[in-house]
């Protein structure tokens, strides 16, 4: 049977008796339905089970890996926002000029360049040729720069497009004309009138793109040997460590759903017009 964790752990030369013994110890000889039910019951009690490979409790493994992924995701998000908002605003304010075209070319390139090519490219330029940052691993703040850039630029590309489209729509609104008519300077209008109203759709997109960010993190972490949840996922897939794979997918999906719920709640705080009935 391909993908049998017992075979992967014991190697091809193991005897059938050894395999059967290990299978019984891990509980893999029980009927599938029973395995699934006991998994669900344990899950309710917050018990994710044990790794088939290292026998460690999966909760501990996840706790070990989580900070690295959080750090990477937040840094990537920051970079994305810091690039996308000025770039998207510039493109919207100077619509149909060289700035606009430049921003849109950046965005098209960003969407088309995959993480697993961007990462190695950054390593060649900034680690191997210039020697500014470490090639891989997670040691000190400098090692965060390249993975965060890889993750952030791709997200920035999508985000810049959204910022531009949203701002273009808002700049034609009546209240912008009013603000201009009463003689406010352009910076105030953009910062306090346009961007504040653009916040809502932009945050929605940000929440929805978190899935892309987390998926991209799996690949980026593999490229940079970043010891996070993504790398753990790939490692445990290769070791056929199913409980760990399950736990990783569960964790990532849960955080995706959680963040999108939080985004909805954030609306009411950002925009007084939005009210939820309690």
């Amino acid at each position: 049977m391909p993908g049998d964790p017992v075979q992967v752990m014991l190697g091809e030369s193991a005897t059938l008796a050894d395999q059967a013994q290990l299978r019984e110890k891990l509980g893999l000889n029980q009927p599938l339905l029973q395995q699934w039910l006991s998994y669900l019951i344990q899950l309710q009690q917050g018990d994710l089970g044990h790794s088939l490979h290292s026998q460690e409790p999966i909760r501990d493994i996840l706790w070990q890996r989580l900070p690295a992924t959080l750090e990477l995701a937040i840094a990537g998000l920051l970079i994305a926002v810091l690039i996308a908002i000025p770039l998207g605003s510039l493109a919207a304010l100077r619509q149909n000029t060289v700035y606009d075209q430049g921003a849109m070319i950046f965005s098209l390139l960003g969407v088309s360049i995959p993480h697993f090519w961007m990462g190695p490219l950054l390593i060649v330029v900034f680690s191997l040729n210039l020697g500014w940052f470490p090639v891989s691993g997670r040691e000190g703040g400098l090692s965060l720069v390249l993975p965060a850039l890889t993750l952030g630029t791709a997200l920035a590309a999508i985000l810049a497009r959204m910022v531009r489209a949203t701002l273009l729509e808002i700049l034609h609104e009546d209240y912008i004309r009013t603000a201009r008519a009463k003689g406010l300077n352009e910076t105030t209008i953009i910062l306090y009138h346009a961007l504040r109203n653009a916040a809502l759709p932009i945050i929605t997109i940000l929440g929805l793109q978190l899935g892309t960010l987390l998926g991209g993190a799996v690949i980026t972490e593999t490229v940079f040997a970043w010891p996070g949840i993504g790398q753990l996922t790939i490692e445990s897939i290769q070791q056929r460590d199913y409980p760990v794979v399950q736990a990783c997918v569960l964790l990532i999906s849960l955080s995706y759903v959680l963040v999108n719920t939080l985004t909805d709640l954030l609306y009411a705080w950002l925009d007084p017009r939005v009210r939820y009935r309690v």
Partner: protein
Amino acid sequence: MFKYQIIIPASLLIIWLLLAVFGPWLPLQPNQINLPFILQPASTTAWLGYDDLGRPILDRLIMGARTSFFVAFWVILLSLFIGTLIGMISGWIGGYIDLFIVRLIDIFLAFPGILLAIALSGLLGPGIENVVLALSVVGWVGFARLARAQTLSLKHREHVLAALALGAKTPRILRYHILPLLMAPMTIEATFGIASVVIAEAGLSFLGLGVQPPAASWGSMIRDGTRYMLVAPHMVLAPGMVLILVVLSVNLLGDQLRDKLDVKSHH
């Protein structure tokens, strides 16, 4: 009439298609190991140089084109067919069936797509068929959601009501009165879908979950190349450039297509 924004990406995609279809008939040696040529850069005998086993990179790129085209073709075809069918039925019938399908779609959307594909193809085991399967399982959802939304609004159009009044049965209405009007938005969605499937296939192969050696994929070529980046950067550069060119072309054409077919953006 024809703009360069259409001609350049379209011809690149046609080259991709031709190479994918006629690749096996070309005098290629993608798996020919030539130890004396290991990691050699581009030369007149091999236009893009050799890889870590002395295999010509250009030949492998062409076989990789075949892989990515094969995967993109089948994934889009499968997801388009399944997604459109489920979406139309869901939108047309409504009621509990619709509610169930919408919940199902929501559950699929709760997973980041690429993550589900990674987990699935990891559990199914490596291999190109499993990549197609994993990406289709993820891919049908977008088509189903679009087809359902469109069907919901088309359902109340006069020509559909007229067909109902004439006594046409559901399959006939769906096939002749709804499906033709779905084609434009579905084509746009499918075009952008190609880009994401090509990237996803390369990503899975990069992670070692896609095609198995000695078969070539642009993703696995990039992965092999990352180990020799300092001595032979061409091993990473060549497949990456090709991949990006294809994805860029698809996205550019998709934009053009959307501008042409989408009435909304004509203001």
